[in-house]
Each structure stands twice: as structure tokens, then as C-alpha cells.
């Protein structure tokens, strides 16, 4: 479960490059809920996920994950509770290490080092099974360097790693955006399978309307560092991609209403 209370983040405050990326975000996500995050470029989606993951400290507000106030925790400490997958298939893994080593690293994250780097049977067997389940032919390549794999294969593996320990919160930031359509489809199918099977509390950023309507149980739409729409329950279920596009158009139209248009409307509207 995730509880976000009035968080704010301003980059480069007091300079010409000042960006108020989060302007008071309140969000409570129930345990097991799968939330899609939508919004135009620069609306603050990644900043929201980064704030939760602890890439930086927020300027104001509070963040609680699984009942713990993590607002002041550094990123590595939050990593015990949070699994992440980014857009770039080349981040989040160590390219020169093998698939197996990457898994060992990921699954020991936040655990006492004492367990060491050993690729124990206890890990290897279920790992091999799971990777065989991907049907990507990777189960016999566990010793290959992860850098030698395709983007789709890497994202699938990164997702498996991020969700392996059933984190309290899973953060996915456009994790299929850099993939070809076929690979994106495979990774999305895997995402849905993992999240629903383990009932993982998830925040997933995407620009794909079909993904947004077909996945998850809730959609939040961000704009200007705030949550503009929050759609859940039956309203989320009946959404069609064109309804979302309509909402995006409405946001754009809202931006177009400048002071000169406001003058014109005052004169012409009743």
C-alpha cells in the first residue's frame, strides 16, 4: 500500500530553470491495486515515481510505503520495499554480468550481504523454471552476459527480477516504450501476469491508450504536476481509448485558453 500526502518537488528553485514538477500530489493506493499513470510529456509522471522510489527527497509532504514513513529514507533503503523497471532496457541491470548473476544481485538487494553471491540451487531452479516460462529460449543462456540480449528479453528479465521478491510496491516507468510492438506486447502480457498473480501494488506509467484501458483497475491522469483525473471502479472498466484521447484533447484545449481568448469569451459568451 502507498500513501502520498501533498508532496511537492521543484527542480532548480529560484533559477531561470525552475520547474515545479510536483505541485501537491495526494494519492492513496490500496494494497493489490494496479494503477496506470497517464499524462502528457513533462506532466510529472516520472518525477512522481522517482519521488516514491527515493531518487531525491521531496520538498514537502509525506510518502508511506507498506505503513512505513519512507519520506526521509535514502533510495537504497526503500529498494527493500520497492521494485522498479525503467523505460531504458539498459538501465537497472549490470550488462557485463550473466543473467544468473544479475538475478542473484537483484534478489539479494537489501538483504544481509552474508548470503553472499552464491547462485544457490534454491535460487537457480525456480529461476530456470520461470525463465523457461517466458518462452524466449533464455533458460539455457543463464550464463550469457545480459548485455548480449535484445531489449525485449532484457525488459522481461528486469521485470522478473523486480518482482521476484514480491515487493510491497512495483514501479514501472514506460517500461515497454523502447521496444518493438511485438516485444512490447510480450512484456505487457508478462507484466499483467506477474502483477495479477502476485497481487502486486503497482504504479505503471504508459503513453499507450490501449494499455491504459485494458490493464489495471485504476487510472490517474497527471497534468502540470497534479493529478487531474482519477478513474476507478466501473468508470475505469467502461473506458475506451477514445475517451482517454478526448480527455487529453480537453487538457490541450484548456492550455489554449489564454488571456486573449478569455477576453473574447467574456465579450461573447452568455
Amino acid at each position, binding site marked *: 500500500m502507498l500513501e502520498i500526502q501533498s508532496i511537492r518537488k521543484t527542480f532548480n528553485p529560484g533559477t531561470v530553470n525552475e520547474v515545479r514538477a510536483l505541485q501537491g500530489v495526494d494519492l492513496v493506493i490500496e494494497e493489490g491495486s494496479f494503477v496506470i499513470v497517464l499524462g502528457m510529456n513533462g506532466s510529472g509522471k516520472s518525477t512522481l515515481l522517482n519521488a516514491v522510489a527515493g531518487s531525491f527527497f521531496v520538498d514537502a509532504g509525506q510518502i508511506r510505503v507498506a505503513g512505513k514513513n519512507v519520506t526521509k529514507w535514502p533510495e537504497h533503503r526503500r529498494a527493500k520495499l520497492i521494485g522498479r523497471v525503467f523505460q531504458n532496457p539498459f538501465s537497472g541491470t549490470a550488462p557485463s554480468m550473466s543473467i544468473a548473476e544479475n538475478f542473484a544481485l537483484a534478489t539479494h538487494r537489501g538483504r544481509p550481504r552474508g548470503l553472499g553471491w552464491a547462485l544457490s540451487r534454491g535460487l537457480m531452479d525456480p529461476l530456470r523454471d520461470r525463465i523457461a516460462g517466458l518462452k524466449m529460449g533464455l533458460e539455457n543462456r543463464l550464463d550469457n552476459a545480459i548485455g548480449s540480449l535484445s531489449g525485449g528479453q532484457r525488459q522481461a528479465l528486469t521485470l522478473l527480477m523486480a518482482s521476484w521478491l514480491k515487493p510491497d510496491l512495483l514501479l514501472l516507468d514506460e517500461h515497454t516504450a523502447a521496444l518493438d510492438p511485438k516485444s512490447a506486447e510480450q512484456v505487457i502480457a508478462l507484466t499483467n501476469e506477474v502483477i495479477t498473480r502476485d497481487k502486486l501494488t503497482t504504479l505503471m506509467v504508459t503513453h499507450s491508450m490501449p494499455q491504459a484501458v485494458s490493464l489495471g483497475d485504476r487510472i490517474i491522469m497527471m497534468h502540470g504536476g497534479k493529478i487531474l483525473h482519477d478513474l476507478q471502479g466501473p468508470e475505469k472498466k467502461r473506458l475506451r481509448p477514445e475517451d482517454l484521447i478526448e480527455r487529453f484533447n480537453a487538457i490541450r484545449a484548456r492550455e489554449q*485558453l489564454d488571456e486573449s*481568448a*478569455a477576453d473574447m*469569451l467574456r465579450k461573447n*459568451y*452568455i
Partner: protein
Amino acid sequence: MEITQIKSDQSLIIRLVGRLDASWSETVRNEFSAAVRSGEHHITLEMAEVDYISSAGLGTLLILYKELLAIKGDFGISTASPFVESALNLAGLSQFLIPTGEATGATKSDSNRSARSPQATYEVFTTPGPGLRLAMTGDPDILHKGAGPTRNLTFGPTSFAFGIGALGEDECEERFGEFLAVAGTAVFQPTDGANRPDFVVRTGDFLPRGCLAVGLIGEGEFPLLARFEATAESRTVGLSELATTALELSGAESVAITAIVETAGLVGTALRQSPARNPKDARLEFPQIRDWLAFSNERVFRDATALLAGVVAREGSSLQPLLRPIGPGLFGHFHAAAFPYRPVQKGRIALEPSVTALFENNTVHAVLHLLNDDRGFTGAGESEFLRGALWIAPIEESEPSPFTTSEADATSSHSACNGSGEARTARLSIPNPKSAIV
């Protein structure tokens, strides 16, 4: 396959050469649709050089036939190759073949007269009849003051109303948005978070019911029908020019208009919140206005079909509090409901069935208050149309002070708009329908 269009006076001839099979049927179908869209309701096909037609091709012909049937146009095949002729006969579609010597063409127009404005031509039909009464309701300053108490209204087949209102019985004020009601239909843009316009179409005795926070309520008939078509050179005609022509055709100082139009684009705005909400907000100030009005800086709903309800008047009308400049010396107030494109049947058409037909596929894109965005280069301009039908009722101000507070006046024998409460009433009538013809 080769497709050639030959434009004749009243109809369009499309000549097809080659094989009309699955690989070409969609292209041909698009060509047909584009022709109907551009206003061709009488289409003749020449198929003498079509040496093969498959079921896909026959299906395409059938779709065109049905499309034209729906708008009372017509469709026929004037020449056919032996293969096409036998295929049509075997498929039971021989009625498509026009017997030689008989050409399909438009039925002769029974218009009383024709007219012209700079960007359009008109055919005008008159139906002498009783007048139409119009009442102003609510406070035009609603956006500053908020919505006051409203009455429940019923909209019958001869009702005419538009303004800020809602459908439904209770808690209307939660949903107040752009509203219009004509010919037994009513449609509005709810402001309670629902994006879709809601509507009621008269079905037997089931009539639209709702409330109007501010607007005009009328009851009666439209004695003039003007069918217009933008000229080939200008391609589109603007709302202010149509409104001016309506005034000229009627000879009156102010008219009420119901219109069904094929659009080249609408310029308009719509309330986003009910004026009954957040009364303390300075609603029309920037930037709060963004939360109150939805407006896009460009023409929307291009190539749609729209239903318009509005009034237009020269300077000095008693309806002035509800009117805004729409052109030089011209004041008006129009609402529009935008529908998916469907061609409007040509010639003299009846109001109620034509309006009802718009709602047939259960989709209304939006209801807008039309604007004249006159900000020069940056402005979106006004709404533009390709062709359509304008029903016009002159507003004859018979009394020096046309407004009374008599409730009886607002209630007609059709029992439309029969609510309790106050309404200021103007009489809309035609003194002499013949004299309305210039």
C-alpha cells in the same frame, strides 16, 4: 480499376472501368461516400466496361443504394457489361439497372423561389401557419451570479428552446450546461463530470423534460424553410451570412432559427461546471475561466452534421440581454449539437422527422454555444457550413413592450414548457406570410 466522375446538372455520373472485386470495392466505396458527402444525392453508374464484378463489388453497390435511399436520393446503373448485367439479375438486384431511355435525375424542385447571398445559394419554401411565441427565462448574468431557481419544463413537438439547462427531473442544477430543444428532442452537455451529451427524443407520449436556468423558450411553427448550399467558389458559408439571409428572407427585425447543417467546422464553447456550483469563484477571470469554459482555438467538428437552435436580430431587439455580436450590426445567440456526419436529404423536408433522424445512431459529440471569435489573425472566426436546411420564424414584436409576465402566455395548448414560475414572453408571429417573401 479506373474511376471517373462526370458532373451533370442534377446528378453525378460515375464511370467504372475494370474489375470490381474485393481489392477495389473499398476504394470504390470511399469514392461513393465522398460523392454523397460533397452533396451528390443522385448518382448514376456507367458499368459498360466493368468486365467482372464479385460479391464484394455487389455489396458496395448495395451500400451506396441504401445510403442514398435513406436520404431520398437515387441511384441507378445506366450501362452495364453483359457480365455485370447477368450478375445483377442473378443476385436479384436488377432494379438497379435503369431501363434504356430513362435517365435518373433530381425530382423537380417545388421551391417557391430561390435566393443568393455572397457565399451561398438558397431554395426557399413557405408554409403559411400560426406564429411562434418566445419567452426569455432566467437571469442572463448567470455566470456572475450563479443559477437561481428554475422551473420544470416539458418539450413537445413544437417546442423551441435553448440556453443553459439540463434534462431530468431532480437536481437539474448539478448538471446545468449548454442546452437546446427543438421538434420534440432535447439535448444538453452535462457538467457533472459526464462527457457525453445526454438527450431525449419524443417517443409517443414520452417527452423530454428538464429545466432551463437561462435562455429562450418558444412554441410554434417555422413558416420558412431555406435550403442552402455554399457556392463552388467559396466552398463554405459562415453563420453570420446565413443569419443575415434569414433576416432578409423573412423581412423581420429578428428571427428564430432551427437548422440542420453539414459543417465545415464549428467555433464554440461549453460550460465545464454548473453555474450553481462554486458561487464565490470569479468565474470569467483568467485563469479560473479555464475551469469554467471549454474552448479550443480552432474549428471543431469539421465534416459533421449539426443541429442548431438560435435567434438573430438587428440592433435594438428586446432580446438584447441574451444576444451578442455575431457580425456587423448583427446580434445573435446560437447553440449547436454536433452529430457524426450524415447527409441531409435535399429539397423540402419536414422539421420533426429530420431532427429525430439525427439521433438515430445514438451519438451526439457535443453541445456548444457558438461564438464569433473575432480576434483577427489569432481568432478562430465563426462557424462555417457546407449545406443544410434553415427553418426560420420571424419574431414580430406586436406590442410596444413585448414582454409580459403572464404565465398563461408561455403555456401553449401543446402544453409544452408548462411549468410554474415566471417567464417574460414575446410573441413570435408572421403578420402575413406572403409579404415575408421579398
